[in-house]
């Protein structure tokens, strides 16, 4: 009966979400104070019942209740307790439930900060969030309830996909979803601002910390996913431009544009309509991403199921939410334009270029992701778009973006010219060249054409980011949290660029068939294959190989790649052995028995690959520092009192 309780909890949560939307939107419209006051209470109730539903499903997983179809499909009594809990988000139904739960958590965070917003604005934000919660809850209850029963009850479950039995997988989806869903708050703020037709730019100040938080979580989520793919999929790939990866990357790119454009709107009152559009676009892309993956709208190695009813429901939901918001935009945004100018060479114009290039980059990814779909729809045959398209096309907007960052970071608000910063720009560029070129050409050698460019840009960005903070410390000025956050994030970006550059141009990969005792050279490293033997794990048996790696005669490491066969599902999984290091990773993975005692092996040398994830996490850390270091402003009492002209008093 506990399971039915979960189902009823979801129904109650849906009704409360409807109440939250109703009171949140109509309360301010009809100027009814008590209606507005009801919105946060409804939101709290919705959170409680959503949490209850999640608790019930976890309870079913822990108790091995295989009469629940979702548990039977995704768990097994032999599965360790930890993975029985994380199996909650192992497939479609549970993932959507997790989505809803995370949305209710963000809603609660908004409720907790409500006193810093004008009452009407806060109510409208909750109203928009209520519509989103309602839509998702209805979707779950109508098409994909995780609480459906299975009769007759199977003796045991089908178990979790072995690829997902991994600690990184336990945290990757929740973190990723926290990022995705977090943009719903930016979306709700943008809608609320448009409904009110606000002429000021206070909404940008309110929206900014939420956007930065969501952005930071998304960055962490993407980095975790990449790391998981790297060691779990067995072949040492960390990014394959798979549709599922792309749909998480697009909101991140547009979200990056959004948080830069928000700065301009908050500080200078410019780009208002553009910022609003970015806020709508970022969340729409998150929504599209969630649904595209889940509804099987795109061909993907990750996709779980293709179910047309779900797809139709999803499209209807997209029409209402995104179409509605864009209609609101078409009606209201023209009234919300800004009236201030700036010179061609100013911080504003650099941030404008930043925005344009980031949006182009996202468009490149979107085009490549949808191209196979469009080709299929027009009967042009099966088209597959992979790294050969994405990698070079993505460089076109991104290389100028990075160079403009290193220069534009020194530009001032409003005032023109860079002459004051000429020396700094040239010095940092020179340092970048002096460090980057030898590193790329001499230390790692044999680079591809763009490698020296990437190396120089990465170092240039790190150095440029440090100029302003160091200058302020020398002059004994205070460092604001947003400056510290920005600096850290930009340093993270520079480190990320260095990692990507070296790992993509200096990796070495060899596929070999080896007999025990044979040695293969991978760069300077000698991989000696010692043999294989059979081992057994908690829910699998495996063939384990032994590979000894030496360099110039010195033992570096011993690798044990495995090929696992899981009992329950009978699937075979290749587990690469990785010797991690800050300056390089060494990998060995086991292929097939090719007969006569020989096995096929893939051996890899990947320099500086750790910098890719470290850079991503540092970027996210920068975002968090900026948000949590922010000075608390008093409750907003006079929302509309600041005329547009007054905002010019704060030139950063």
């Amino acid at each position, binding site marked *: 009966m506990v399971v039915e309780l979960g189902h009823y909890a979801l129904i109650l949560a849906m009704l409360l979400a409807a109440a939250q939307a109703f009171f949140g939107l109509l309360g301010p419209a009809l100027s009814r104070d008590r209606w507005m006051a009801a919105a946060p209470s409804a939101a709290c109730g919705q959170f409680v019942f959503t949490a209850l539903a999640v608790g019930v499903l976890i309870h079913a997983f822990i108790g091995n209740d295989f009469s629940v179809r979702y548990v039977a499909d995704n768990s097994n009594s032999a599965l360790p307790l930890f993975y029985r809990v994380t199996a909650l988000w192992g497939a479609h139904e549970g993932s959507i439930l997790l989505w809803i739960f995370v949305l209710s958590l963000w809603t609660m965070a908004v409720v907790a900060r409500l006193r810093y917003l004008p009452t009407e604005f806060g109510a409208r934000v909750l109203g928009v969030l209520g519509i989103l919660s309602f839509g998702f809850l209805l979707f779950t209850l109508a098409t994909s309830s995780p609480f459906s029963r299975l009769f007759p009850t199977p003796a045991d479950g089908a178990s979790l996909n072995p690829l997902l039995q991994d600690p990184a997988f336990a945290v990757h989806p929740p973190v990723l979803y926290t990022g995705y869903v977090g943009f719903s708050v930016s979306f709700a703020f943008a809608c609320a601002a448009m409904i009110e037709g606000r002429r000021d730019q206070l909404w940008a100040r309110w929206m900014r910390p939420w956007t930065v938080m969501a952005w930071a979580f998304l960055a962490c989520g993407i980095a975790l996913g990449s790391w998981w793919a790297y060691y779990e999929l067995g072949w040492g790939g960390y990014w394959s431009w798979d549709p599922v990866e792309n749909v998480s990357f697009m909101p991140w790119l547009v979200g990056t544009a959004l948080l830069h454009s928000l700065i301009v709107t908050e500080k200078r009152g410019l780009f208002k309509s553009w910022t609003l559009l970015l806020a709508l676009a970022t969340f729409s892309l998150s929504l599209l991403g969630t649904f595209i993956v889940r509804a099987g709208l795109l061909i993907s190695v990750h996709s779980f199921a293709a179910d047309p009813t779900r797809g139709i429901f999803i499209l209807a939901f997209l029409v209402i939410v995104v179409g509605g918001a864009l209609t609101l935009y078409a009606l209201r945004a023209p009234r919300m334009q800004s009236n201030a*100018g700036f010179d061609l060479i100013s911080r504003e114009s650099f941030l404008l270029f930043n925005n344009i290039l980031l949006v182009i980059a996202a468009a490149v990814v979107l085009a490549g992701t949808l191209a196979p779909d469009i080709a299929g729809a027009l009967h042009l045959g099966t088209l597959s778009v992979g790294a050969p398209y994405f990698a070079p096309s993505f460089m076109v907007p991104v290389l100028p973006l990075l160079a403009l960052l290193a220069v534009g970071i020194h530009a001032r608000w409003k005032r023109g010219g860079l002459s004051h910063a000429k020396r700094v720009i040239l010095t940092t560029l020179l340092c970048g060249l002096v460090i980057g070129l030898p590193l790329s050409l001499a230390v790692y050698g044999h680079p591809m054409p763009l490698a020296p460019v990437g190396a120089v840009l990465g170092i240039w960005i790190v150095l440029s980011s440090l100029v302003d903070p160091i200058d302020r410390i020398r002059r004994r000025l205070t460092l604001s949290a947003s400056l510290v956050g920005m600096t850290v994030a930009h340093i993270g970006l520079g480190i990320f660029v260095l990692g990507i550059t070296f790992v993509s141009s200096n990796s070495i990969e060899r596929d070999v068939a080896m007999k025990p005792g044979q040695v293969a050279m991978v760069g300077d490293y000698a991989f000696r294959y010692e043999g294989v033997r059979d081992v057994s794990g908690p829910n699998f048996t495996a063939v384990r190989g032994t590979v000894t790696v030496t360099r110039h005669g010195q033992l570096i490491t011993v690798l044990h790649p495995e090929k696992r066969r899981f009992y329950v599902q009978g699937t075979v999984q290749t587990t690469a052995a990785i010797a991690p290091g800050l300056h390089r990773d060494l990998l060995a993975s086991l292929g097939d028995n*090719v007969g006569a005692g020989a096995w096929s092996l893939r051996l890899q040398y990947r320099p500086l690959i750790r910098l890719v994830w470290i850079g991503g996490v540092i970027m996210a850390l920068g975002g968090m520092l900026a948000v949590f270091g922010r000075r608390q402003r008093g409750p907003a009492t006079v929302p509309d009192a600041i005329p547009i002209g007054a905002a010019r008093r704060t030139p950063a």
Partner: protein
Amino acid sequence: MNQPIEGAPTPPQEAGTGSSRWRFVLPLGLFAALLIVLFVGLVHSPEKNIIPSPLVGKAAPQFSIPNLVSGGEPVSNAALRGHWSLVNVWGSWCATCRDEHQTLLMIKQQGAVPIIGIDWNDTPANASNWLQQLGNPYQQVGEDPNGRVAIDWGVYAAPESFLINPQGVIVYKEVGEITPEIWREQFLSRIDAAGGASPPPATGG
């Protein structure tokens, strides 16, 4: 609703030229276009999980490759004429082929159709070893060391198998291992529906 408060007097320079309203409608238009793409994609989605094989319903591609048995006649389309046959693409390096081998031996025992093997990306020595150790279900095995034939047949990975009717037309393609169930449900059912197998010729090539 709050009345928007008129801003301070504005300098003439403006980022956009104001009243051109169409650019605010443009996002909505783009979104509508995207929706159409998604909708069409959705309607077509059930076909997507199947790797399309344009070969089904067409004549088997022409091929003629060396016989694994040295001195034997080349293996070619001639082996497929006049009776139902099963073309199985395999290699001694392929673990799944080892599992599938038992089913192939069973099919040989039943004698419904002759099996023509295409030994893909392999060496004759390894292939012969494999057949000696595990038994030989094939009437003939052709050597395709460079994957030329496999490309013509649209093979992505081993094992893949093709059911070919007496007219030499590909009736069905199985990607991955043939299990006894798949053999019954996908292959035998098709042969029966078409009026049953003609007895295979007595001798191999």
